[in-house]
């Protein structure tokens, strides 16, 4: 029995658990959804929700067309209300705006048996559904590694879902089960208390399916694999061999003293979770480099700006939060009045006439810092460069910008900090930046260009700030050699310019280096030299960019 099948079973028994399914469209995902739908009782609501859903469609409101036709307000029911007791499949959940996620989270908190299956099609670690939603969905599944043949019979066989659903309310929760889940979540470094609660709920659903009165070891292990393991931020210390004397264990200080059945159960839960941790995560955590802290996208998108400087009107629906331009609406309706048979004193306005105001809002800027941490830079000026970046960071704080940070060192560029509004984190990652190795300038520029592109797709304005001595000596493919390296850097710089991303290059070399200036010209960047780039000039340059 695969875990995927178990996850489907649990959802069928208790749809309110919710799931976050990471996978692109494909046969496995389709099979999973079809299997789940088949496993739910006949007539269970099943709705698909697009990421760009508006509030009225989500929460309900006034049906404008019907209201105008009837001359009195006609309400329409929102998707969440219609889906009560059933499943809402949130397509492309990684694109879900935080506001929509917040409303869904509210609906989940209010109870009512709403089940959300969020389909996460994100490609990299940063592209995730909003944290507010993920935190409330019990099962986190990754279908990427599941071969289609394993999913072929998902939900096909008829199981005792009906009787399990009936039994669910009667499943009891023994105290040692709670203790085991609480201990395991703590040892896995999971802060949110929702995680053990959801794990408990999953374990109870599993117990109902197995026909047990209370969750046992197998059910807890399953819940730990499906709910706790994907949220782990720390590798728990491996379970000690019982023959050895128990050494002091700071993580699970409590479980040592008890030593009875409860402690053993907690260990088993932990073992199950540990076994389910993805191998890549383990190495990343072992290196102490886990940086995937929760961070949601902030700020408004430019396209549907609802505030800012007014820039005329356009035809549109005033319900989705846009503001109606009354004069323009009436002006649009005026020519048609006779055709529409309007009587005196009464203007006939149809849906087509609506004009809404357009606004242009200043998008938020994301400043991408690319710091040269090579040996040559470290020797001279890395400390000063760090100081300069800190000044710039303080300036970003004032302007409420977001920042991202890339380091160039060794053989390539490394993303130190994905775009964030938390300046404290930026400072931490900068302070922890060691120097050494060659100058992979080309890789740094390439990475900055890719990040800038990603920022722009997110609806924000990128700004790249390079702090380098310009002594490129590592080519794009990681091989040393000055000539190739400089050539690659120039090509990359041209690409950055092609993106139209404003840039600033601060030369942190001991003396001005001609190649640094040339690269700056290639990428259309302003060029500043650190000795003269006092704090004020730097800040002004970034502000002007």
């Amino acid at each position, binding site marked *: 029995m695969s875990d995927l099948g178990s996850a489907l079973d649990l959802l069928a028994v208790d749809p309110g658990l919710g799931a976050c399914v990471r996978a692109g469209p494909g046969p496995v995902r389709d099979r999973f959804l079809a299997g789940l739908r088949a496993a739910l009782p006949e007539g269970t609501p099943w709705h698909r929700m697009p990421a760009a859903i508006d509030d009225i469609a989500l929460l309900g409101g006034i049906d404008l067309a019907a209201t105008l036709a009837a001359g009195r307000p006609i309400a329409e029911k929102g998707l969440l209300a219609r889906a009560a007791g059933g499943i809402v499949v949130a397509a492309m959940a990684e694109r879900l705006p935080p506001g*929509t996620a917040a409303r869904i989270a509210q609906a989940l908190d209010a109870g009512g048996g709403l089940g959300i299956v969020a389909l996460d099609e994100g490609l990299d670690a940063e592209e995730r559904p909003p*944290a507010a939603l993920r935190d409330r969905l019990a099962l986190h599944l990754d279908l990427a590694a599941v071969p289609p043949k394993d999913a072929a019979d998902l939900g096909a066989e008829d199981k005792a879902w009906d009787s399990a659903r009936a039994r669910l309310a009667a499943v009891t929760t023994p105290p040692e089960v709670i203790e085991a889940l609480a201990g395991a979540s703590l040892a896995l470094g999971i802060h949110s*208390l929702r995680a053990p609660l959801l794990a408990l709920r999953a374990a109870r659903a599993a117990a109902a399916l197995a026909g047990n009165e209370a969750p046992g070891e197998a059910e807890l292990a399953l819940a730990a694999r499906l709910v706790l393991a994907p949220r782990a931020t720390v590798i728990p210390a491996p379970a000690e061999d019982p023959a050895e004397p128990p050494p002091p264990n700071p993580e699970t200080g409590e479980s040592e003293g008890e030593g009875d059945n409860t402690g053993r159960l907690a260990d088993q839960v932990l073992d199950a979770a540990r076994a389910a941790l993805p191998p890549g995560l383990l190495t990343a955590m072992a290196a102490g480099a886990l940086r995937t802290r929760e961070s949601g996208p902030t700020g408004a998108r430019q396209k549907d700006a609802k505030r800012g400087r007014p820039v005329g009107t356009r035809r549109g629906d005033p319900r989705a939060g846009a*503001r109606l331009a009354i004069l323009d609406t009436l002006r649009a309706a005026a020519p048609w009045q006779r055709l529409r048979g309007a009587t005196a004193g009464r203007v006939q306005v149809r849906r087509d006439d609506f004009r809404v105001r357009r606004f242009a809002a200043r998008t938020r800027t994301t400043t991408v810092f690319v710091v040269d941490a090579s040996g040559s830079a470290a020797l001279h000026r890395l400390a000063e460069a760090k100081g300069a970046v800190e000044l710039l960071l303080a300036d970003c704080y004032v302007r*409420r910008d977001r920042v991202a940070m890339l380091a160039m060192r060794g053989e390539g560029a490394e993303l130190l900090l994905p775009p964030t509004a*938390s300046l404290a984190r930026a*400072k931490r990652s900068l302070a922890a930046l060691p120097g050494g190795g060659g100058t992979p300038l080309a890789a740094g520029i390439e990475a900055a260009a890719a990040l800038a592109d990603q920022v722009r797709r997110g609806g924000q304005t990128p700004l790249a700030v390079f702090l380098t001595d310009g002594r490129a000596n590592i080519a794009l493919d990681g091989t040393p050699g000055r000539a190739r390296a400089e050539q690659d850097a120039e090509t990359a710089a041209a690409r950055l310019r092609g993106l139209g991303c404003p840039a600033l290059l601060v030369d942190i070399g001991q003396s001005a280096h001609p190649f640094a200036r040339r690269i700056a010209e290639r990428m259309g960047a302003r060029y500043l030299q650190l000795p003269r780039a006092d704090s004020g000039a730097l800040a002004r340059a970034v502000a002007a960019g």
Partner: protein
Amino acid sequence: MPPFPFSAIVAQDEMKQALLIAAVDSSIGGVLVFGDRGTGKSTAVRALAALLPEMRVVANCPYNCNPEDHGARCVEGCPAIGHKSRAVPVPVIDLPLGATEDRVVGALDLERALAAGVKAFEPGLLARANRGFLYIDEANLLEDHLVDLLLDVAASGENVVEREGISIRHPARFVLVGSGNPEEGELRPQLLDRFGLSVEVRTPTDLPTRIEVIRRRDAFERDPAAFTAQYKRQEAATRRRILAARDRLGEVRVPDSTLEHAAQLCMSLGTDGLRGELTLIRAARALAALDGAAEATDHALRRVAPSALRHRLRRNPLDEAGSTVRVERALAELFPA
């Protein structure tokens, strides 16, 4: 499902204290709760509102007007003038991220304007929150102009709308509760200062507390009615405490020594403006009222000082030293043990 009982919330004493103070004296200016996800922030707010006795409002009044406040003098154009009163639970209004200004302050009632040709005001969230709580999850991600607007209304107790040919002002007195996770972005310092109290919540990291949280939450979800009944007496006691404190608030004396210590504390911490002192005194007085004390002593002052001051310290945005530590250090200097 009834809300989770306030008395059943495990630990998080500072948050509970701050919310109780805000419930006693709504002029304190709201509570900001910063901390991790899943620490019971929204649970506590909803629980507190459910704990408060139902309030009497003018029936059908969209602004939750108090019938005893001003008799027939509701907002001009309010359809409910002269209606009877009825009892409703204290509202907790959620302000979702991405809410538009129209939804928050209210706007021209489009349907009525078009269908009936009437220029009418459609009240927004601020009207619905009058005399209750306005809860903003992730206040740090809310757009600045909305936060500005909210704090302005929260401070003045009145919402003034001038738009689309509508000119209206209606009462909007509510306790503003904001929450958020500082890792995801900071609140502008000017706005921080406008919140009365600020609390930092942490997920409990000791096993027994976590077990207790899960045990209670599980018991509640399995049988809300029975669980709520179990805490009925404690809830009633807390309710009496709040109501008694509200009655007593005006009589609680603030001795000169407390005033002096509050001023000394703010001076040593270098807080800007006088808002820090004022909030400190008010919070100490509300806490004394909650305790049934006749005067706000230094003891009350010490207990509220971290909540009232930690977000008012002038700080380097990149400085990682916790403000809480600085407040505690200043307290230790002022009141040597």
